[in-house]
């Protein structure tokens, strides 16, 4: 018989939980990191084409989306502060704001990509295939990297939606809010990637 056997109906270790989230974030950093290296090498090999191709991108819309993501990062951080101080209502408000900002980001992205498609710029379009190799690489990387980032926004939206529901029904609460913290970490990661995507694609000089 085990003497020290204690039933843990509900084992809970916030430090380990966060450690697991960070490990997952590292795999994401290396995924995008690899793409950033591919981007740097091709930009190094085709500097002129990358510069000319980037002029097709709208700096204003990129800047607006950057600020939207930065603000949403703050609101999700504030939702954790609200949770720690036991203000459930405020936590839910901050989470809704974050979700709303994420949706606005996606709507902007829709219009931005829509305008590109309208000008016959999309992966595999005849116009794109008639351009030089450097231009094709720029737009290929642009669609792939911002597209993958947008997929992460959608995943983050789903995650924040689950967090919202769990905060609402009380299973994520002031004594146990690892899911909220980890959801927040994921959301900051999405912001972190955009911080590098924005200058690399929109602000080539």
């Amino acid at each position, binding site marked *: 018989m085990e003497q020290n056997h204690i039933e843990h109906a509900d084992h809970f270790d916030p430090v380990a939980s966060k450690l697991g989230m960070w490990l997952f974030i590292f795999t994401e950093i290396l995924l995008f990191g690899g793409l950033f290296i591919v981007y740097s*090498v091709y930009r190094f090999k085709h500097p002129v084409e990358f510069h000319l191709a980037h002029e097709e991108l709208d700096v204003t819309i990129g800047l607006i989306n950057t600020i939207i993501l930065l603000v949403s990062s703050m609101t999700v*951080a504030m939702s954790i502060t609200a949770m720690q101080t036991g203000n459930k209502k405020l936590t839910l408000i901050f989470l809704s704001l974050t979700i709303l900002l994420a949706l606005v980001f996606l709507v902007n992205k829709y219009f931005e990509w829509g305008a590109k498609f309208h000008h016959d710029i999309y992966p595999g379009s005849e116009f794109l295939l008639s351009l030089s190799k450097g231009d094709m690489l720029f737009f290929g990387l642009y669609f792939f990297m911002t597209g993958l980032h947008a997929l992460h926004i959608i995943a983050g939206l789903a995650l924040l939606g689950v967090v919202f529901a769990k905060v609402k029904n009380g299973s994520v609460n002031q004594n146990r809010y690892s899911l909220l913290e980890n959801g927040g970490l994921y959301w900051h990661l999405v912001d972190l990637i955009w*911080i590098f995507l924005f200058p690399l694609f929109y602000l080539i000089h």
Partner: protein
Amino acid sequence: MSEHKNHISSYKSHAVVLLCLILLTILTVTITSVHLGPFNTAAAMVIASVKAGIVLLYFMHLKFDEKIYRFMVTLVLAIYVVVIIITFFDYLYRP
């Protein structure tokens, strides 16, 4: 709960962090619109790295959490930088 867990960032500090991030973003846009040659990209990357550092330390709470997270993040970023350096040694010195 350990002491670290009890650190609560104030709403004000989050707002200040956001303000810094937005100012740095505007600075990046401004700096890349003037002609500095190759330093444009370098400046944009330095500012992006500073912004990333601020997000990691304050929003992602690395500054206040257990040291193990900070250690791991540093290690992963160091490995990534080494991979970048090796890749460019290859491409810069290809015949």
